[in-house]
């Protein structure tokens, strides 16, 4: 665990602008970094995450590709093995499924299969999560699939600070990395230093300290967990909120250390609960802190169904502060709050 965090007086920046700022600075510093993907050029990416890069670096280094997710990742793999440091974008995380062979069978395994000869410094950026009524094929959170594949590193920044810092670390890492941006966080604003800095991979962040329960919250759920923690503080419950930041490799130590102090744990993510990364986290916690637990590790995630289109249903689909607070009360054996 590290306490790496912005100083409060740092400049404020939007999550999505942290992306382009990180990339611009990395590209200025290192000629081997380039960006390729669909509509990443003059359009600046469909979410604006790449705006300004084409203007500054031109079409040699900012490449609009055909709609070909397999070849986009393959381009990255081949270029990475040949010494460049590619950043390739898969517009929506749902499309990762189109490119899974290149990601999981090629990028992830090349080095190992080659007996450690190859170096694959490839970064894949992608946008995950529900909340835009984009329905079942444009709203998924599929990090669990990627975290199960040895050879990949997976980060999920929850703040503008970590968006920049983790992206920098990923691009500089010599392994294939995946940077998951959350669509509902794109407009989030927070302190972001202007200089180039790294958020170390594999180090969780304690977003709030507390003594009664450990909430491990992934991506967009960090904010929801903090809101829940604030509510619960009013009820006399002090939650420790941990943002893993990197999901693979996972910072078990920080999480387990916390649970050993709080004796209670709740894991929350936006992805489907069954088989989500929360299952791994819960399994690890009970393995490493069994004797410290006063109750079972609880998990909150999306129900077992595709992401529905209608806002009326989508809203029920994504976990929120209220459900997290209810989950905490459940773990602690408190009476449920009737709204």
């Amino acid at each position, binding site marked *: 665990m590290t306490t790496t965090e912005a100083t409060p007086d740092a400049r404020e920046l939007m999550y999505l602008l942290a992306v382009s700022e990180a990339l611009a600075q990395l590209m200025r510093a290192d000629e081997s970094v380039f960006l390729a993907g669909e509509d990443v050029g*003059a359009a600046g990416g469909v979410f604006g995450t790449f705006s300004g890069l084409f203007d500054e670096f031109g079409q040699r280094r900012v490449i609009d590709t055909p709609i070909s997710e397999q070849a986009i990742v393959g381009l990255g793999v081949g270029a990475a093995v040949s010494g460049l440091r590619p950043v390739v974008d898969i517009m929506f995380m*749902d499309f990762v499924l189109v490119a899974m062979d290149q990601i999981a069978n090629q990028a992830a395994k090349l080095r190992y299969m080659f007996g450690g000869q190859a170096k694959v410094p490839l970064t894949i950026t992608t946008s995950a999560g529900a909340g835009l009524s984009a329905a*079942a094929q444009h709203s998924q959170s599929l990090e669990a699939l990627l975290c199960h594949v040895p050879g990949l590193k997976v980060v999920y920044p929850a703040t503008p600070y970590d968006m920049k810092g983790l992206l920098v670390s990923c691009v500089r890492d010599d392994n294939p990395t995946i940077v998951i941006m959350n669509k509902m966080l794109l407009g989030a604003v927070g302190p972001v230093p202007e200089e180039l800095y790294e958020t170390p991979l594999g180090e969780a962040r304690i977003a709030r300290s507390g003594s009664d329960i450990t909430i491990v919250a992934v991506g967009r759920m960090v904010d929801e967990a903090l809101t829940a923690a604030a509510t619960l503080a009013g009820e006399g419950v002090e939650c420790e909120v941990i943002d893993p930041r990197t999901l693979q490799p996972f910072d078990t130590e920080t999480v387990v250390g916390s649970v050993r102090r709080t004796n209670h744990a709740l894991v929350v993510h936006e992805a489907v609960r069954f088989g989500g990364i929360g299952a791994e986290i819960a399994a690890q916690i009970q393995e490493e802190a069994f004797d410290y637990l006063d109750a079972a590790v609880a998990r909150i995630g999306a129900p077992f169904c595709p992401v529905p289109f209608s806002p009326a249903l989508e809203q029920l689909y994504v976990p929120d502060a209220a459900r997290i607070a209810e989950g905490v009360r459940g773990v602690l054996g408190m009476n449920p709050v009737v709204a």
Partner: protein
Amino acid sequence: MTTFDGIDLHRRMVRIRVFEETAGRLSESARLPGFLHLYVGEEAVASGVCAALNDDDQITSTHRGHGHLVAKGGDFKRMMAELMGKATGYCHGKGGSMHINDLDLGMLGANGIVGAGVPIAVGAAFANKYEDNGRVAVAFFGDGSTNIGAFHEAANMAGALRLPVLFVCENNEYGEYTRRCDTMAITDIIERAPGYGMRGVIVDGMDVVAVHEAATGALEGVRSGNGPALLECKTYRYFDHMGVKGVGVSYRSDTELEEWKQRDPIRSFEARLAESGELSADAARAVWDEAQAEVDGAIEFAEQSPLPEPEALLVGVYNETGAPS
């Protein structure tokens, strides 16, 4: 030369245009959730092709799917309710614009994944051949979608298995905000057809009669067991990739848009029908009015429809029935 029913073709196009422009307006006033890919400008393609189909032929569609469903006979009420995420919509509010479908009409769904509908159409065509039921399947897709692997695999498989499927490419020269010429080193999409052993035909996608005739001709071969064919329709979307705007954008010029609009598929066809005396200006107006009235009714229906109940969230993930054992 095939014959055509001008009144029918005209009506299909107008219904699409009116539905789409209305949907665009609703979305601009934030009355529709989610992403909206409108078909305005491309009406002649869906209309000309679908008019050449039998009711029980199947089609698969794209992210830009309303036009295909309207052309296949889709119900405005259930469409509009779906766009609003209401329980009375085609997908009971679970699919929205990108998954709109009507299996009873053989419309096997819009699709949020570029190219993914193409193999599904091939599967439907396989079923038709397997059951020897005389039906054909049509896959609609954009120019940009021909760059994705699923398109290639599906086209090749259809060729190899000689399946009764018509591939219809809506070549509007852009994929989102990227020009086609930047993503492929060919002039026409049909240059891909020979690679699958299939015939490719180019047609003016702004001319509904030409589309209809080309589709009818291609479908004849498809129906008679010659295997698949590729029909490339040169067309243009008036609006933006998503939503309405479409003018004053950086990736294409307003002049280009204006030039295409000069060849508006509906206006030009109305002129032709007026000239031939098949459809007077008044009668044409009545078609617009009727469509507008129907859309207005659909909006009312949709707005008065209930949202899905919370219990609906987990309904329909699995089918509880099975084959008789």
